[in-house]
């Protein structure tokens, strides 16, 4: 096992832990994406390029896209414009009081 593979595996563990401990759901999905990407590199190192292609396309691509779509549906992604609008509304409400 080379140093490179060891580094990748450490990165994998860090990714796995931080994905589950991240407070922001969007960050979790992004970390999960990078996890899949590193995993696909590891598959190449383990001499299974077939799996590497599938992992990159499904794990890093399609699954995260589905996660994004779901997050958007459940309003898990908060857009800055929305936040500003909400803050303005709150300020106006305070002023009215």
């Amino acid at each position, binding site marked *: 096992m080379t140093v490179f593979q060891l580094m990748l595996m450490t990165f994998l563990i860090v990714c796995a832990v931080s994905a589950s401990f991240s407070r922001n759901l969007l960050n979790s999905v992004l970390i999960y994406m990078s996890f899949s990407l590193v995993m696909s590199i590891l598959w190449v190192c383990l001499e299974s390029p*077939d799996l590497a292609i599938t992992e990159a396309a499904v794990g890093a691509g399609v699954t995260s896209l589905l996660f994004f779509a779901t997050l958007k*549906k459940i309003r898990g992604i908060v*857009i800055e414009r929305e936040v500003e609008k909400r803050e303005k509304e709150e300020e106006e409400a305070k002023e009215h009081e």
Partner: protein
Amino acid sequence: MSRRRSREEYERTLAFRFFRWLSGSKDPYLGRVEMKPQEEWREEESVQLDHLHDHQMLRDRIYDTEHNRKIIFFYKLYKLSAVVFCIGLASLLLYTVSYLPKTGAANRPANNEVPARYIEKGLQETGAVNIVTGMILDYRAFDTFGESNVLFVATVTVLILLHAKRNSKGEEEQENDRIFEPKNDAILQAGARILVPVIILFGIYIVLNGHLSPGGGFSGGAVIGAGLILYLNAFGFRKTEKLFTEKVYKWVSFSALTTYCLAKSYSFFTGANHLESHIPLGTPGHILSSGLILILNICVGMVVACTMYTFYVMFRKGDF
């Protein structure tokens, strides 16, 4: 001929009373029995105060999480046992893994006559340079067929669960969802214009070269699906609807699965009855070689690409 009676006269007869009773238009007890509306149930003031006092006591004593010793103890024990359980499970698994034979060691139990046969005679029997594809689409084609069907069934289930009719309550929400969508995002469109053709071409290359180089139907199909999703995100539903509708999805999936099923049934039938299949294997290394594997790869790729794209569309819009 019966005599015609007046209304008052008729009301006095037995028949009138009987039919009146039958239809229930008059309550026989009404006007005879005294009826009182039910009074509202009320508690006495002292009882109410008692209840309030009880509630307050409950809140003070039991739900006082900061000073309740039992709850504090329970929380601490809970955290401690969770940590102990996680560490125990991880160490148990690691301990088990340490007994596994090393990767690539000669005395692995998986190193028996089956992979030996695949490696030695795979090229000769299937004509596929890529042994993995030869395995999954020739020796184990039945499994792959089941996999494609699982994908198809999953999409059908998603269609049933997420399919929303237009002009219904969901329309407002759909529009709401599109408010935040960057319409005509310049960066995304410029990127997609360069990337999408490359991605889809690469996917087609993976599918068609499945028997020569790493890859195959599933991974190539996933790449094509991802490219289609990128195109959809950059240019919106209106452009993709010209190319890809529900009808297209239905027919592509149906024809691909049927072709797969028929092709494999033929080779199973001939193989089981020791007949010659008359399908030329071709020269290994050429694109038109290895018998049915190329066709099967294309079928799997089409099903997977359609499935990925349909999943995304269903999640986003609930309709094609």
